[in-house]
């Protein structure tokens, strides 16, 4: 997969993951509209899990997003060199042909 496609797909996937992490409450309301009796850390699960995903989950995703973004910068820089070389070689061939 080239750097462009990686950039687009990683942005879409990360955006969806961030939205899910920040809106876990919506998922609970979707499947358990009246809340849950089960508890975690002393709290009802539907209360504490959205708080944890909305904090720790988001921190983990920012680490992933930072890593992916930095890797992509490097890949785009490499692809850019290829782009420039191809453009230069095409223009050289063109000038030789026209000379």
């Amino acid at each position, binding site marked *: 997969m080239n750097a*462009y496609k990686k950039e687009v797909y990683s942005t879409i996937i990360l955006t969806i993951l961030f*939205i899910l992490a*920040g809106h876990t409450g*919506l998922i609970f309301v979707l499947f358990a509209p009246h809340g849950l009796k089960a508890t975690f850390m*002393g709290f009802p699960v539907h209360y504490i899990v959205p708080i944890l995903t909305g904090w720790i989950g988001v921190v983990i995703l920012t680490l992933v997003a930072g890593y992916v973004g930095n890797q992509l910068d490097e890949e785009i820089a490499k692809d850019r060199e290829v782009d420039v070389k191809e453009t230069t070689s095409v223009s050289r061939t063109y000038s030789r042909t026209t000379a």
Partner: protein
Amino acid sequence: MEQSWQLSNTSLGIAFLVASFVVFYLIGWYSNRASKSVADLYIAGGTIGPLANGLGMASTYMSLATFLGVTALILKLQVPFVYMWIQFILAIPLITILFGTSLRRMGAFTPAHFVRERYGKTAAVVSACWMILIMLMYALGQMIGIAKAFETLLGIPYAYGLAFGGLLIVGYITLGGMYGASYNAAFQMVMMGIAFIIPLGAIMKAMGSSGWWFPPLLYGDMVKSMLEVAPDFFDPKYGVKWYFALIPSLTLGGIGLPHLAMRVFTASSLRSARAAMVWYALILGMVFSATYTMGFAGVYFSQSTGTVISPTDADKITIILNLVYNPEWVTALVIVGAIAAGLSTLNGNLLAIGALVAQDIISTLKPNLAEKSKMVIGYVAIATAGIVSILLAFKPPAFLVVSILWAFGLAATVSAPLVIMGVWWKEANKYGAIAASLIAGLVYILVSPYVAPSITLSGDALTDKLGLSGALLSAPLSFIILIVVSYVTNRIPSLAVRIPRHETEKLIESIHGWSTVNPMRYNSTAGAFTIAGICAVLVIWALMPW
């Protein structure tokens, strides 16, 4: 029985306030000595490191509402409001991955600066006018909160608190520029964390919680007692539609706020911007979680003791709990922390207004202005915006947080779609951008209860006032208009010739890091129309009964 919640020892309040403002002014003046250009004034020359920037991002976003307004709404809405607040953390990470690093690469001062380069002058002026309105609404909320904090701290009437506090703050912001804002915001974030979480631990201990040493997460042992006094505290109360509406209104709104995007532009490099995002999430998540604990403690206190908190005092629940459970000097520290929270956000709001007026409106209309004149106009705009927000705050709404949250829906409608589509879709053009911004923006205002109370969508007063129902309609509508109008006008030769297609393609490729133009990149019609299709479903859903 209702009580008056005031600090009895006002000299304590004055001492804390003077000490903190001396530090803020000194940091502002010292940091801003090097400010010699408009880039220095608005984005601190793009030099702020990841930790200071992460703290600054958290501080700018963590407005005074976190100290005052949020707990008031937790008191009223309980768990739904906790769910609503959790998602606010997404703003900076989504800005960074969707367009922040791209606009940082371009050297933008504000999102409207990008709109000018991408869509032209008219779209930039329209966009900047909307953003100024959004920033004024936001600044208004901070001014109201700051005046209330001064009222409690110094025992003076609200109007005097507003005039005195407001002018003191506008002076400090105008003096500091973005250098001062960044380093002051970092300092204020540390101060806020200490002033909020440590006293909260003492409150939890006094209430009998064994997890008082880490208030953000360890109050599970109080759940049983809470359910005895407030059995419905953990009930979700609202349906799926209400919770889903948080995405187009508040999550997308956060992405459209110019003062948050500007914090990404101040980063010293792209790597630094990404590292700052991690610090931001770590710190903001902790303080936000502590806010839910404060709201929980407020509900528990009012229900278990039978204390009646009047609607006018609901915003003060953090201060009330401290007055009840902690010594007065701790309450004074908390109030100063709250003022610091308001200051850092107001700082971001006013700087954004300065940049929008000077750079995105006046410099667009008069491009040959000298650098020095632009800076003078910027300083005047910052000070004027501050004074306008003071004047508007003399007649405040009942809940300060409502005016701020309504502004989010407007940002989601008039700003976020233009920037996101502008960065990721080459076909987006000025006709689509102007039409989307104007039509969808006016629809949002029209369906809000403030203009025509009879044309609201949900029928639930709070849902409409917060802009949740309006933005579920107007934000997707904005995407549809932008995509369809751009697609159609690009195929009308007489209109298409007026669009600098090659320059646009070059700009988009360059902000993503490419040096050559490839027509296959950022040009997916299928992608754009998939977004339009999803948005059409959302528009229909918004119009159906709530």
